[in-house]
């Protein structure tokens, strides 16, 4: 199993969630984060002073999927989250050694 972790622009959440559902991803976990990368931050003003906020709001969407689902999952994110603009985000894929469903104690792919 793999953890597919997509860092996306916040307003893409609904599109990504729908795309993932279409390819059969049953559950996701979403975290609000701040991201720093190639995308420039924005300027804010404070009584005539100016400062740059370069940590931009992003969302991390995490989905644990079976190995054969990884590609479809990645494609679904690419399709739904890309505007072809700097800052569209990244996908990280990490191997997972086990998944357990708390409710039932089921393990492995059954737990997804």
């Amino acid at each position, binding site marked *: 199993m793999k953890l597919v972790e997509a860092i996306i622009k916040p307003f893409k959440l609904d599109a990504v969630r729908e795309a993932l559902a279409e390819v059969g991803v049953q559950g996701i976990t979403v975290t609000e984060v701040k991201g720093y990368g190639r995308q420039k931050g924005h*300027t804010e003003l404070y009584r005539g002073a100016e400062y740059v906020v370069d940590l931009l709001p992003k969302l991390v969407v995490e989905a644990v999927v079976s190995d054969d689902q990884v590609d479809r999952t990645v494609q679904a994110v690419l399709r739904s989250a890309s505007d072809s603009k700097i800052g569209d985000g990244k996908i990280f894929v990490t191997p997972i050694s086990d998944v357990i469903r708390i409710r039932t104690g089921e393990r492995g792919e059954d737990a997804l």
Partner: protein
Amino acid sequence: MILSRIADQTAADRSTSRDRPTRSSAEQRSRSLHRGARAAQLTYLLFLLSLAFAEPARAQGEPTLDSGDTAWLLTSSALVLMMTLPGLALFYGGLVRAKNVLSVLMQCMISAGAVGVLWILLGYSLAFSEQGELIGGMLGDLSAVGLSSIGPEDLRSGTAVPEYVFAMFQGMFAIITPALMAGAFAERMRFGAYLGFISSWLLLVYVPLAHMVWGGGWIASSLGALDFAGGLVVHMSSGFSALAAAILLGKRHGYRHDPMPPHSLPLTVVGAGMLWVGWFGFNGGSALGANSDAGLAFLTTQTAAATAVIGWALIEVLHTGKATVLGAATAAVAGLVAITPACAFVSPLGAIAIGAGASGVCYFAVTVLKPLWGYDDSLDVFGVHGMGGVWGALATGLFITEAALPEGVGWGAQIAKQVLSIGFVAVYSIAISVGILLALRVLLGSLRVESEDEQRGLDLSLHSENAYTLQPAGTMVGHAPAAAPREHSGAA
């Protein structure tokens, strides 16, 4: 004439208010005659003496300031500003998404600023100066431009308060009315377009209506429609204009697909509370003195608001199973809107009827009419102020007491007058507002921010600010930059 005026003035101070738009000098006279009759019971000598004592006052030839009336009107003026800042700002600010809250607060602030200045320079004179009318029955004149012709000691005619205080009281109405509209096109209008819109609107819609209804113009004097504290002038005018603006500007990105819940209902409830409290100044102050009319207006205002809260909650429980907090806040405002034109003309039980009706009418407008017609009136300005205003203006006729009916006008006739005034204000407001907005669209290119700016939020796009910064992070660039800040400086 002068004699009767004086007698009237000295005898009592209350006449000032109830029907301030329609109070005719004839009526004035009839009242004082009555009091004169009483005096006639005395002997001749005493009559002479009374004359003698009345002399000093008559010599002065003018009514005197009543400190109690003045105190109440000063207080009311402060309360009405509180309705806008912070009341309405909070009410609207809580209802929008967190990325747009500052843009809404700014719209309220800038109304206080721009209208505040325009009112002194031009607005007050055009609405309320009575020397001669510019356009028959539609506008006052330019004799009080900059208020230069008025001194601190001058009293507003027909009242016992300084004209300056009257001008401020009316000025606070002029500030809140354009700001009310901001809710309809919230979360998408450019800042410059807003400023242009409310400034023009003030002079072309608000000022004429205020004159027509309260400044001696034709709605009150010729048509004879009643509007004690602003159902037509404030709520209908802003509600219908706001509807036009919302439609002209188009829907928000994602409207009716994405939920756009209030980002902070506590702010909204606080705002509703302040509106409620401030409304006592709005309606009670419209008596222009601390008199029995003010008392009646206060009582009906409170009662209608309370009834609307209960009525709305009941409807919600029947309709959706739950009474909501936003419902209660909305209901309070709806009740307050509806009682505004009627507040000194109906009985306490009449106020209950009007409040209950308001909850029904506005709930229907907001939950049935809006989705049916499909316009995006972001915060339901039309549903609450427009439709609530219509209901209130109509209900003023429906529930008016015998005593409040103008001399010689029947109940049915008064209702007809109210209906006519409703029609006129609706058409006038929409027509002029559409005109202003189309002109501004040509002038500015667009009334709306760019789509990307809308998604990023107006706070950052228009004002380069963030409402909430719980974890500061970033880099100082410099104090007092000489140039415009980078990125997106064009949207304002």
